[in-house]
């Protein structure tokens, strides 16, 4: 570490405020990030956020990779809901390549994305509880995150960094165990969520800790580029799933919960209500998937041989399959030139992919619009004048994920 990081400011011996280094590795930051807080007693006077501790240069790496190999990079953005990032990336590629996915693929994707949203919100909301001193809820709902991860495991074989799906669909159809586990989740989770809600929602201590802290007005939130639950808590009903539907979200009935004050309590409530909406979307999508009969019920990818790996048996027996297999594996397929921007509603808000292609094999430039990175700059404004303990709560209720901050 260079001396710049530890240099004491001028006259620091005589000063009346305390400088506190919160992070980079502190249990309350829930990730690798640093906050240099200036405290007057327990009040926060100012703060400086330092990020970049797990910067992995994904945008640079993406410039040498074929499209399919970039999916693994997107896993590691918001690692609490990797499938949403994966699907967002596939949607971006499909938009550039002009691929139309079958309805069944869209619905399967919706199931997975909503499961991921639940697991994301569930972690965030229970961590807010932990930071307020209520550990029970966290341990209780963790079982159901485990169940969600088991569903991922049935579908793609991985749990955290899922690399789920391919351009055009999924690598294999959902098996029966996956559907059984989704059913089990739909059956059991509402009861658990209700109990989790009972623990917090009208809990006097929790309400007094969260209400009125870390508040932001709708106007400021928009100016700061807030999206997702944090923006909706301030009262703006902006949701990418409704405004620019992707993956057939227009086929589903759901509400967008909004708050009014934009404080920690409203953020918690919006996430809580969104989990109920997600549950209802999963139920609808599951029903729609069950309604496919015969050959239609076997469709799990679009017909795009240039980008979708052929079955292994064909690779050994058919010439075209062998050629496509080779080209995909070696990343030899040229992608069309063009510029696309595709956004999806990730756990934290609008996750955007800006892809510039010059007609080569990998993107000329890929930029991730990470919602976390954009709204974390408002943190200083949110906690100015607040108590240190409220600053901690605000940090966790914003749902900062270090992977998404740093890319």
């Amino acid at each position, binding site marked *: 570490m*260079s001396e*710049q990081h530890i240099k004491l400011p001028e006259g620091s011996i005589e000063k009346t405020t305390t400088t506190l280094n919160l992070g980079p590795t502190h249990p309350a930051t829930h990730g690798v990030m640093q906050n240099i807080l200036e405290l007057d007693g327990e009040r926060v006077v100012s703060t400086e956020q330092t*990020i*970049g501790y797990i*910067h992995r*240069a994904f*945008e*640079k*790496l993406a*410039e*040498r990779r074929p499209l399919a190999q970039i999916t693994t990079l997107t896993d590691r953005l918001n690692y609490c809901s990797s499938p949403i990032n994966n699907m967002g990336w596939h949607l971006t590629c499909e*938009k*550039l390549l002009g691929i139309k996915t079958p309805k069944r693929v869209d619905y399967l994707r919706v199931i997975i994305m909503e499961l991921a949203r639940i697991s994301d919100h569930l972690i965030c909301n229970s961590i807010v509880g932990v930071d307020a001193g209520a550990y029970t809820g966290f341990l209780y709902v963790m079982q159901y995150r485990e169940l969600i991860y088991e569903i991922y495991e049935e579908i793609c074989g991985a749990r955290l960094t899922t690399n789920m799906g391919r351009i055009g669909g999924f690598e294999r159809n959902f098996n029966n165990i996956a559907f059984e586990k989704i059913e089990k989740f739909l059956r059991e989770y509402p009861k658990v969520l209700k109990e989790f809600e009972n623990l917090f929602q009208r809990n006097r201590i929790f309400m007094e800790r969260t209400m009125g802290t870390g508040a932001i007005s709708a106007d*400021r939130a*928009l*100016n*700061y*580029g807030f999206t997702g639950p944090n923006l909706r808590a301030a009262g*703006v009903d*902006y949701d990418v799933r409704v*405004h*620019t539907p992707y993956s057939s979200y227009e086929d589903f009935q759901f509400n967008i919960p909004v708050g009014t004050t934009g404080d920690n309590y409203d953020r918690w409530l919006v996430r809580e209500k969104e989990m109920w909406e997600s549950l209802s979307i999963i139920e609808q999508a599951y029903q729609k998937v069950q309604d496919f009969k015969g050959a239609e019920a076997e469709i799990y990818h679009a017909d795009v041989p240039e980008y979708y790996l052929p079955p292994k048996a064909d690779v050994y027996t058919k010439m075209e399959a062998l050629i496509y297999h080779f080209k995909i594996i*070696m990343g*030899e397929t040229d992608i069309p030139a*063009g*510029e*696309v*921007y595709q*956004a999806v509603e990730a756990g934290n808000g*609008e996750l*955007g992919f*800006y892809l*510039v292609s010059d007609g080569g094999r990998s993107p*000329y*430039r890929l*930029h991730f*619009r990470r919602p976390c*990175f*954009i709204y*974390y*700059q*408002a943190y200083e404004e949110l906690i100015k004048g607040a108590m240190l303990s409220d600053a901690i709560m605000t940090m966790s209720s914003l749902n900062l994920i270090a992977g998404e901050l*740093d*890319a």
Partner: protein
Amino acid sequence: MSLINDHIRQRLSEKFPEQLTGFEETYGMLSFEAPRDLNLKVLSFLYDDEELKFRFLTDLCGVHYPTQQEREIAVVYHLHNMVDNVRIRMKIFAPVSKPDVYTATGLFSAANWMERETYDFFGVNFVGHPKLKRILNVDEMDYFPLRKEFPLEDQTRIDKDDEMFGRG
């Protein structure tokens, strides 16, 4: 009353005749190029205009085109009108030798870190930015890593032969 791309284009051309160029519509999004010194004027016109109302800065990033003389660095703004739900893309180009661009932080607080990120990776000097310093990379770094002159792989490696795959 929904806003269509042709109308946005017409409004912009009325206000800035002959200054905005490169209008195109790719994948449904209107995209255009503004002169470097007019970026703030165009942004605030888009922000304030009664009809256009592009008041949400979705994204700001840089792109490096080393082959374009005197316009090597592009700064790309994605703006969103949330009332009519329309997005547009504005680009400005700056020479790599003197990449000075006016900051948009006065208009959008969100631009603060996005501009720091663009400075960090492309070296764009945002004139008037309140605190233009590196954000993701270490402060001591003396180059701008996303520029194209920095290849991703070590070019001195001799254990790999890519000739057969057209990457030679």
